[in-house]
């Protein structure tokens, strides 16, 4: 179908974008890459939005290394994440995730900030952000806020971003020496939303596991992480399957997703042991 849009404005800088949102009477909607938002508008899941197009805001673009943290501007597109040398070196999980995100033409437009703000439980970058212990940077009428990824995702498409705020960047600790970052998922067609997926990060402090498409929002799975820390992969699979509450839909039943997530953890564990399958 055709999108039903209430109005459109092109923001020239971040202050302008925040002003536009403030004047939108709660109907304001930030338009970044648009690869989920415009699809939702086309399906009339969202109508009458006053779109604040942030694509021209240069300050939201680019990847920088600041000491031991990597900062990624919200408007960094998936195709740029896929080829950025700093990301490949310091956050390889994000680069690997781009192989799994949608299709080439969508990766040319979609942005990492948009994906994280949208908080689709089937999307890769929200799960990656939590697995990497990223910080989400937002700006708004009351000034900038830094939100740990663990406090950011609240529910199905719900985050702690407030009305009038814009996600400006994410930052994350660069990978330690010897750190492993692995992502696995299964989809019916390459690039489609995963039936199930997971990110596993192994640091000196221990494993971090976050699943994709098996819950309402990205969450760490402490029981399974503790079993992985203990080297008990079979135990971790049992703990992971017990911890999740996956949905049943036309793509896959809950039982099938629960089965898949264990298979994916076994594959990830094989990667961690240097035995790629």
């Amino acid at each position, binding site marked *: 179908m*055709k999108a039903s849009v209430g*109005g*459109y404005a092109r923001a020239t800088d971040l202050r302008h974008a925040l002003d536009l949102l403030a004047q939108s009477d709660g109907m304001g909607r930030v338009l970044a890459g648009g690869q989920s938002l415009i*699809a939702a508008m086309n399906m009339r899941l969202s109508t009458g939005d006053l779109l604040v197009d942030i694509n021209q805001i240069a300050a939201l673009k680019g990847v920088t290394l600041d000491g031991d943290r990597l900062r990624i501007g919200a408007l960094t597109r998936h195709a740029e994440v896929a080829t950025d040398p700093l990301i490949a070196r310091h956050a390889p999980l994000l680069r690997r995730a781009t192989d799994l995100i949608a299709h080439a*033409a969508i990766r040319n*437009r979609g942005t990492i900030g948009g994906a994280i703000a949208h908080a689709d439980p089937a999307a890769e970058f929200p799960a990656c952000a939590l697995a990497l212990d990223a910080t989400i940077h937002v700006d708004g009428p009351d000034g900038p806020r830094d939100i740990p990824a663990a406090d950011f995702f609240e529910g199905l498409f719900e985050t702690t971003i407030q009305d009038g705020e814009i996600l400006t960047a994410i930052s994350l600790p660069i990978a330690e020496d010897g750190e492993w970052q692995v992502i696995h998922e299964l989809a019916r067609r390459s690039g489609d939303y995963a039936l199930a997926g997971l990110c596993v990060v192994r640091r000196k402090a221990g494993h971090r596991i976050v699943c994709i498409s098996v819950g309402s929002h990205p969450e760490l799975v402490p029981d399974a992480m503790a079993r992985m820390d203990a080297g008990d992969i079979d135990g971790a699979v049992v703990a992971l399957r017990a911890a999740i509450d996956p949905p049943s839909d036309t793509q896959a039943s809950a039982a099938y997703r629960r089965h898949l997530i264990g298979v994916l953890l076994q594959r990830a564990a094989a990667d961690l042991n240097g035995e790629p399958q």
Partner: protein
Amino acid sequence: MTAVFSDRIDIALRVNGEEVEARVPAGRHLVDFLRLDLGLTGAHASCEHGVCGACTVKVDGQAIRGCLMLAAQADGADVWTVEGLSDTGDLSDLQAAFVARNALQCGFCTPGMLVAAQELLAQPGIPSRHAIREHLSGNYCRCTGYEAIVDAIESTAQARADRGVA
């Protein structure tokens, strides 16, 4: 609606090498602007939620979904459709290979396939069949079963490499 938001947007862009100015509804998709306002019906509007790839066009050198970008966002952009890419001859060897290999039957998906494939062929080296399939994963064809499409793209890449243009 507040005055700062508009439901009609003035845009100036380049389409297939020609300067175009227009006033478009805020919700107008780029592909509908091209098809309905400019009469460039090569790119097709099909699923309209980014799944099928029939609306793929080139914007600022990159293949994008014409149904997931608003015309309002194309202000200042350099847009190419299959019509323009055909006129310049950029696609002629690929188009000939599609015909030679029977890589189209009804042809509905073909403009999107060509634009998507052109982006892959612009990369250095000869892509593997797996890489071709992966790159075209976002373009549905309901006729051919894809095998002939992969053949056409692979043979074009090979021929370009043989001629030293890849």
